[in-house]
């Protein structure tokens, strides 16, 4: 045919699958055209029509479908994944459960840590704020490190304005603030007028420039304003402050500040939670000395000028101290500057930082275990997926596609688990905050940065969990996958076994640790403290009138309290055991001998009823006086430790540092735990309140009966006797629990952690068992054919795990023992570590695991060998 070159041209450019129909249509039209127009014209038309097919819609038709396919592929991945998950509901549930539990726990701890790291960040220009601290050259008779000479900050600003920009100094006092009949006990800060400018606290009402520079003025937080007046705009109103020296005094409110971040190192310094602020002029009312003297101790914050190195600033401060301060003040100390930005984390020997680090480690472990689990179960359940991979590869899937498929599966699972965890967190955070005694904010309060971290964490978890299984599945050869054979079963099993062994190791470690912690804390709570802590009520809100007159007034009050049949005895004292026991420490020695060479003793004050209220055991002499005996000055009572070290007896005379008169030993009490059991019992000396001229607490020993009614009765009496003071009380038992708060929290945390870890480990074992049972299906069949019984087979499978556990336990015991001994050595009084604390958890874990292994493999063990053998 003459038109053939046109058709050849068509064949050249037209995609093969479209050629036949197009060629047919063109030829049909050509034949028709010949009839209608004749051959010449028809030929021209054919050429014209053919050329018109030379267009993208035809030429590129092959490539059109590719974009289309990708979305379809992902759809198919998703569908297959859902089918697999639904088919293996049990495994899917376990995988999701482990991951969700792990992420939820990580969220709870992570948000707590996040909160701890946010402390102080609200303070203005935090990177230039520093707290002065004193380093003493000797360690005897020292004040707390945060007290520095009062004049130092002021001198620094005056002499070196290029280095130092501002300072704020304060002393804290617990004071009673009243409005008519409404009395509240509050923590106050008595300090400089630079308070607002220095830290950037937001002033709601009043003029911050003149708020704290006149006597008898007071600044309060919004919370307190609402408490007293039900509104925040209260400048010009006045509140009554019960001062220690000058009695009740009216104070005018000059400013109201917005509530401050709950935790910070200024108003919440040493957890004091100050809500009211008084000017330096108020110092005289509270007997705090003057702020412009070298020998007054004060807490000082400094703000450095921009670009000043803290090292240079500290050196300058020491130079000023040595040059200007009197010899007796400057000689024994150096000044250091602590940046406020990390003060909260590093104070108290870095307690918070240590807590954060150990919590992070626990979280990392739990997450790691959850991921491990995911990996194990994915490998185990990937059996059924292997054929799918084979089919995908046969019909043209490449390795990369399979990899992407499985990675996106694990990523999706991680995202779903993460979402579930967020829900769980919202539901659980109140409960956990309560149990652990910390504050956990709602997720709605978290800022954007947190969400970035969370998202990143989820992606990392998803990738970590999916990496090994997907590499492993995608790299299996096509033929092997189709046959359902793993390419290196031994390698995979070894890997999985290693992971499970590691899980056992961690599980035993956590279990034993939590048992030991729990025992040690019970030991604390049940131990004989040397005093009777039951039924003792401590009231801390009494007026502090530290004069002879005040003492007499308290004496009368005591007698009035004793008229109640519900009160057994009443004591006035400085502190109670485990609750602000001693005001200071001093050296004591035999009279006439150099007192500096004596022993460092905790000095406390009490009255003669103290021994009855707290049930102390008197070994010798009397507790100050016998009943009815008139007061005699300068008597003291020692504890057994002090008496033994000094070798002193009742009736002997003692010298006390900072005191010019000798004291007579009136009695010796048996040692009791006045500090936490972390500490060894130290020497104690009681002075009488009247000699000491100070007191802080009333302690009531209640008679047996309804506690509630007794408290009501005491409160009623209190209101009659002290109408101007609130009734703030605590029970000794509760105070003791606060002393061991960290340990109690730790116990709860380890209990939660051990439950979680048990769940995760056991599910992990479950996954591995099913993997190895499925793997050895044929072997089991052959063994059964050759005469093995069901119990033979169970033994065969569980032996492997028993072996794994024994190795893990053997490895963990020494490490664990070392760790526990270290932890226990932090307590001066602790129980002995005994064998059962290791044996019981190990045995329990062992038995549970073996039972689970047997239960899981039982189905295979009883199955018909014919079925497993005929399966290829």
């Amino acid at each position, binding site marked *: 045919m003459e038109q053939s070159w046109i058709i050849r041209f068509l064949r050249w450019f037209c995609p093969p699958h479209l050629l036949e129909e197009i*060629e*047919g249509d*063109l030829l*049909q*039209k050509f*034949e028709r055209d010949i009839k209608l127009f004749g051959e010449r014209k028809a030929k021209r038309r054919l050429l014209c*029509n053919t050329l*018109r*097919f030379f*267009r993208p819609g035809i030429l590129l038709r092959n490539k059109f479908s590719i974009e289309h396919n990708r979305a379809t592929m992902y759809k198919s991945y998703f569908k297959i994944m859902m089918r697999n998950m639904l088919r293996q509901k049990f495994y899917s549930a376990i995988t999701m459960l482990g991951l969700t539990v792990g992420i939820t726990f990580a969220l709870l701890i992570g948000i707590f840590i996040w909160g701890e790291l946010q402390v102080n960040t609200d303070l203005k220009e935090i990177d230039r704020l520093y707290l002065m601290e004193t380093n003493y050259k000797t360690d005897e008779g020292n004040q707390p490190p945060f007290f520095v000479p009062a004049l130092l900050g002021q001198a620094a600003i005056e002499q070196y304005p290029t280095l130092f920009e501002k300072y704020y100094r304060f002393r804290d006092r617990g004071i009673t603030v009243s409005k008519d009949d409404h009395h509240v006990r509050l923590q106050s800060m008595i300090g400089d007028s630079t308070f607002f400018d220095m830290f950037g606290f937001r002033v709601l009402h009043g003029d911050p420039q003149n708020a704290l520079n006149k006597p008898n003025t007071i600044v309060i937080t919004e919370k307190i304003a609402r408490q007293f007046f039900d509104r925040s705009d209260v400048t010009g109103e006045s509140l009554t402050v019960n001062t220690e020296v000058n009695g009740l005094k009216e104070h005018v409110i000059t400013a109201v500040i917005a509530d401050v971040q709950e935790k910070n190192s200024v108003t919440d310094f040493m957890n004091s939670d100050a809500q009211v602020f008084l000017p330096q002029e108020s110092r005289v009312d509270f007997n705090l000395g003057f702020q412009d003297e070298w020998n007054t101790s004060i807490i000082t914050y400094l703000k450095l000028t921009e670009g000043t190195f803290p090292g240079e600033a500290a050196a300058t401060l020491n130079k000023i101290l040595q040059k200007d301060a009197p010899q007796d003040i400057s000689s024994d100390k150096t000044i250091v500057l602590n940046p406020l930005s990390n003060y909260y984390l590093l104070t108290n020997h870095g307690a918070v930082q240590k807590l954060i680090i150990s919590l992070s480690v626990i979280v990392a472990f739990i997450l790691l275990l959850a991921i491990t689990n995911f990996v194990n179960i994915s490998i185990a359940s990937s059996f059924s997926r292997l054929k799918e991979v084979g089919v995908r590869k046969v019909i043209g899937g490449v390795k990369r596609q399979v990899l992407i498929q499985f990675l996106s599966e694990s990523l999706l699972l991680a995202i779903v688990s993460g979402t579930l965890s967020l829900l769980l967190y919202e539901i659980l955070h109140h409960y956990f905050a309560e149990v652990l005694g910390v504050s956990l904010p709602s997720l709605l309060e978290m800022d954007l940065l947190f969400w970035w971290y969370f998202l990143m964490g989820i992606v990392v978890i998803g990738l970590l969990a999916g990496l090994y299984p997907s590499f492993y599945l995608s790299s299996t050869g096509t033929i092997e996958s189709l046959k359902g054979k793993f390419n290196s079963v031994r390698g995979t099993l070894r890997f999985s076994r290693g992971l499970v062994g590691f899980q056992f190791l961690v599980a035993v470690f956590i279990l034993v640790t939590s048992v030991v912690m729990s025992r040690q804390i019970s030991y604390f709570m049940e131990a004989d403290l040397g005093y009777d802590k039951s039924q003792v009520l401590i009231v801390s809100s009494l007026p502090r009138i530290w004069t002879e007159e005040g003492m007499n007034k308290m004496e009368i009050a005591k007698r009035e309290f004793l008229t109640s049949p519900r009160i057994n005895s009443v004591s006035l004292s400085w502190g109670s055991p485990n609750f602000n026991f001693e005001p200071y420490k001093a050296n004591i020695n035999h009279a006439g001998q150099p007192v500096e060479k004596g022993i460092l003793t905790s000095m406390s004050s009490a009255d003669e009823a103290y021994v009855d209220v707290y049930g102390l055991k008197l070994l010798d002499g009397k507790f100050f006086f016998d009943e009815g005996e008139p007061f005699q000055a300068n008597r003291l009572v020692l504890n057994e430790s002090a008496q033994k070290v000094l070798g002193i007896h009742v009736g002997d005379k003692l010298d006390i540092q900072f005191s010019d008169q000798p004291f007579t030993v009136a009695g010796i009490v048996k040692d009791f735990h006045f500090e936490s059991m972390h500490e060894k019992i130290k020497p104690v000396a009681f002075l009488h309140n009247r000699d000491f001229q100070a007191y802080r607490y009333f302690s009531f020993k209640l008679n047996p009966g309804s506690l509630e009614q007794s408290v009501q009765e005491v409160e009623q009496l209190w209101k009659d006797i002290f109408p101007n003071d609130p009734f703030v009380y605590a029970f000794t038992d509760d105070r003791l629990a606060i002393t061991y708060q960290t340990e109690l929290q730790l116990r709860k945390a380890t209990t939660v952690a051990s439950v979680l870890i048990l769940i995760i480990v056991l599910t992990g074992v479950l996954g591995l068992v099913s993997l190895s049972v499925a793997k050895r299906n044929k072997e089991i069949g052959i063994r059964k054919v050759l005469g093995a019984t069901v119990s033979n087979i169970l033994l065969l499978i569980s032996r492997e795990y028993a072996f794994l556990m024994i190795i893990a336990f053997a490895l963990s015991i020494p490490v664990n023992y070392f760790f526990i001994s270290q932890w226990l050595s932090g307590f001066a009084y602790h129980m002995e570590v005994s064998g059962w604390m290791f044996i019981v958890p190990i045995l329990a874990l062992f038995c549970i695991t073996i039972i689970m292994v047997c239960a899981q493999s039982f189905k295979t063990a009883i199955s018909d060998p014919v079925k497993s053998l005929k399966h290829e």
Partner: protein
Amino acid sequence: MSDFFNKLYTNPYISLTKHIEMNKEYLGEFEELVLTMVGILQEEAYGNAIVNEIKDRVGRTCNLSAVHVTLYRLEDKGYVKSSMGGSTNARGGRRKRIFTITNAGLAMLKAMKEQQMQLWKLIPQLKIVGN
């Protein structure tokens, strides 16, 4: 559930299909024409026949390649499906690709017609202007 949706689709008073389909895809004028022809021609719908049908019924001359490309596009969108027919002598033994309209295509056509009718009704017609 599926029963419920079927009823919805077939109920002429509920124009659910219209919304669904109109949101998803849009048909050009020529596409609509070709789709209609596929619907009319039934078993005889292939490239050449459609060109002729358009010529006969609408009097519009159109290009064979344009019809082909449109048919492929409609197939991509899921409004027609195709299969190869039997061979005839008339075309030098080449087989025809026969297109048939799918349910989705039919629903789409219907939706478009309804929409056009609705718009049409809004035009004031045959008003006798009295003066």
